[in-house]
């Protein structure tokens, strides 16, 4: 205990990561009937967590990784340890999670005001932050897996927060089940690795992978299985449809879920044991292909939807695909940096959208535009900043990270990856600005609504309270917009921090080579990247922004393709069909038959046998007392005779 208090780093780690859990317990157990107090406790805890994480980042900046470890249990020659592993990656991620979770909770103070589940909401937010922070600092893969699952659980609670709504509870279930599919692979991979390698400690694993101490067969199989976890959690190609549905939760939840927690967990885990993945070229090739397919598919989906949040949800999927591509192409820094900047601007985009949705009570970008979305100056400006960053326009943070990713892709032997990356960049810019132009330049101007006077009166009555709500939402948005503007210029310090101070960074890996390219040799590439973004924006302006634009989009000339994109490439239909066919038609049917025939039938058979046996001998019950007596006398007499003989 003395050592615990005497070591400020350990103290900050333990407190910072576990305060949200304490606040959740306090809210759920004691203060649930008092929403105002609950939210204060929760926000205070997460703010303390954010401060601790920034403190850790500041103190340990540039030092070598810090490891705390105690034995959890051992079985045979297997030691499972429990502890913290603080290196540059986990410190950076911890700070991101802490800050964004804190901003989102402050925002929620306004967004969720008056909701009947206010206390519950903050409790689950705290649970979410707690799980994610503990996952980030986990010292072994098994510990990471435990909190990985906790993150999934918390997101299930939050996606299905409006559980009275059928679609919300379905969306929560879908997210949970699809994650389980990936997690089964993850867990099998962990077991396979444990059997083959004997330890699940993250530093040990990365050192062994660096030293080529792992047999290639073990490595490839376990890396592919563990990658299944990334596919589920980060919504990669076969399992991507849960994320767009996950916006059934409150908007701040989407902001948190799409930026710093949940989906970031998959990419973070990829980066966490990056040397391990990098040692297996086959697994990296599969990951690269999956990332590319994911990015392209989900970008096309985003081009046809009119739902504000859905556009950002698809765009999250595609940006995650881009991160996986970058990591799988060997760009450790590019992937992690894109994760960092994306966390900032995607949270910004969702929080801005949340203000629009809160104001206009609709998700449809056309209606928001018509009702005067652009009059909300602060969110409008901030959403534009976010969209510019997402499209990769200088000087916003997305520009820098996207350039880094494209540079990594350009270093690949095949040109196809770079082409896919550029195509993705064009589509990203197109769909982001399609949304911006819809809101900023609505067709036929802004409709004056009849109930404006009524709204005005309402405004006067509750002016002060509405002001509080508005500023609670606006301040986090402004902070995030500032971060989005500034973060890009910290590319080199962050790169230096991530790559050089990380002792487990693989020396044999092309990541170092691409680092140089980002600095110097990428001038044509930079031009290509910028022009891809600008081309997308121009296309969107031509179709949606300019005067007299028909606002249909070129895709509306191809109804079949529109339908294909709009129905998510029929992935959901495919899942539905295979679910009906294999699960409901096959497995469930078998289980039903087992229940009806074997279990019910067996019990019925025993009853039938007993009953018919009883009927068989019931003739002995003649009802005549004296026959029974006679039989008894004969039996006793027979026994006596037998004994005497």
């Amino acid at each position: 205990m003395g050592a615990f208090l005497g070591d400020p780093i350990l103290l900050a780690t333990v407190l910072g990561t576990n305060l949200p859990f304490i606040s959740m317990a306090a809210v759920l157990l004691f203060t649930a009937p008092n929403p105002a107090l609950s939210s204060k406790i929760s926000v205070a805890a997460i703010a303390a967590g954010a401060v601790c994480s920034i403190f850790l980042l500041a103190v340990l900046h540039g030092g070598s990784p810090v490891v705390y470890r105690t034995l959890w249990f051992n079985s045979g020659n297997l030691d499972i340890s429990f502890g913290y592993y603080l290196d540059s990656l986990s410190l950076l991620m911890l700070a991101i999670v802490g800050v964004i979770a804190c901003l989102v909770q402050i925002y929620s103070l306004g967004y969720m005001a008056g909701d009947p589940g206010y206390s519950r909401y903050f409790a689950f937010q705290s649970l979410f932050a707690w799980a994610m922070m503990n996952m980030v600092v986990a010292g072994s893969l098994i510990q990471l897996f435990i909190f990985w699952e906790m993150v999934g659980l918390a997101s299930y609670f939050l996606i299905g927060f409006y559980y009275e709504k059928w679609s919300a509870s379905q969306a929560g279930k879908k997210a949970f089940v699809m994650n389980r599919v990936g997690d089964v692979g993850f867990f099998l991979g962990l077991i396979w690795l444990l059997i083959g390698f004997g330890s699940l400690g993250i530093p040990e694993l990365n050192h062994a992978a660096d030293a080529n101490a792992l047999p290639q067969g073990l490595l490839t199989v376990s890396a592919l299985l563990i990658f299944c976890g990334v596919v589920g959690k980060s919504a990669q190609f076969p399992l991507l449809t849960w994320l767009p549905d996950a916006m059934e939760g409150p908007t701040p939840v989407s902001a948190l879920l799409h930026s710093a927690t949940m989906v970031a967990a998959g990419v973070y885990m990829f980066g966490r044991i990056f040397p391990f993945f990098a040692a297996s070229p086959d697994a990296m090739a599969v990951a690269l292909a999956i990332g590319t397919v994911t990015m392209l598919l989900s970008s096309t989906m985003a081009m046809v939807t009119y739902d504000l949040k859905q556009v950002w949800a698809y765009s999250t999927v595609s940006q995650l695909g881009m991160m996986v591509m970058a990591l799988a192409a060997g760009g450790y820094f590019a992937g992690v940096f894109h994760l960092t900047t994306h966390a900032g601007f995607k949270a910004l985009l969702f929080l801005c959208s949340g203000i629009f949705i809160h104001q206009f009570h609709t998700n449809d970008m056309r209606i928001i535009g018509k009702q005067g979305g652009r009059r909300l100056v602060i969110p409008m400006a901030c959403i534009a900043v976010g969209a510019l960053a997402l499209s990769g326009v200088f000087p916003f943070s997305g520009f820098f990270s996207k350039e880094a990713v494209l540079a990594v892709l350009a270093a690949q032997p095949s040109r196809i990856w770079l082409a896919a990356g550029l195509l993705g960049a064009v589509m990203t810019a197109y769909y982001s600005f399609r949304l911006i132009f819809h809101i900023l330049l609505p067709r036929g101007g802004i409709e004056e609504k009849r109930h404006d006077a009524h709204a005005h009166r309402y405004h006067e009555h509750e002016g002060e309270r509405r002001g509080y709500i508005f500023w609670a939402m606006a301040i986090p948005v402004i902070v995030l917009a500032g971060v989005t503007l500034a973060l890009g210029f910290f590319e080199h310090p962050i790169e230096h921090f991530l790559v050089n101070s990380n002792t487990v960074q693989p020396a044999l890996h092309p990541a170092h080579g691409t680092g140089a390219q980002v600095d110097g040799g990428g001038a044509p590439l930079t031009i290509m990247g910028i022009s891809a973004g600008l081309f997308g924006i121009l296309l969107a302006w031509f179709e949606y922004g300019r005067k007299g634009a028909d606002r249909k989009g070129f895709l509306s000339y191809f109804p079949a393709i529109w339908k294909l994109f709009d129905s998510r490439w029929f992935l959901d239909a495919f899942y539905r069909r295979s679910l009906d066919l294999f699960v409901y038609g096959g497995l469930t049917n078998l289980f039903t038959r087992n229940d009806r025939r074997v279990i019910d039938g067996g019990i019925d058979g025993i009853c039938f046998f007993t009953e018919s046996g009883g009927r068989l001998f019931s003739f002995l019950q003649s009802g005549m007392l004296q026959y029974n007596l006679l039989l008894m006398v004969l039996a006793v007499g027979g026994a006596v005779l037998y004994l005497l003989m």
Partner: protein
Amino acid sequence: MNNLSTYLIISALLFSLGLQGILLRRNLIGMLISVELLLNAANLNFMAFNRFLNADPVAGQVIALFVMGLAAAEAAIGLSIILALFRTMHSINIERAQKLRG
């Protein structure tokens, strides 16, 4: 005349009479009386064995007294059952009481 087998034969005859009564009579009171005969046959055996084989004369007599007490209790309970049966069936004929026929 004063030997053991005489008593045993009388006792066996008594027992057979009781058995025949209990098996053949359809009147419940008749069956109850036959049970008394069976008990008395057993009592006679106890007394005879006690008299001819055992040096201690007390044990057999005590048991015989017990059996008499038991018989009195049995008669009381049996008669009250018969009374109850008569109240519901208006008959004490055993052939009427066949509700448990399978």
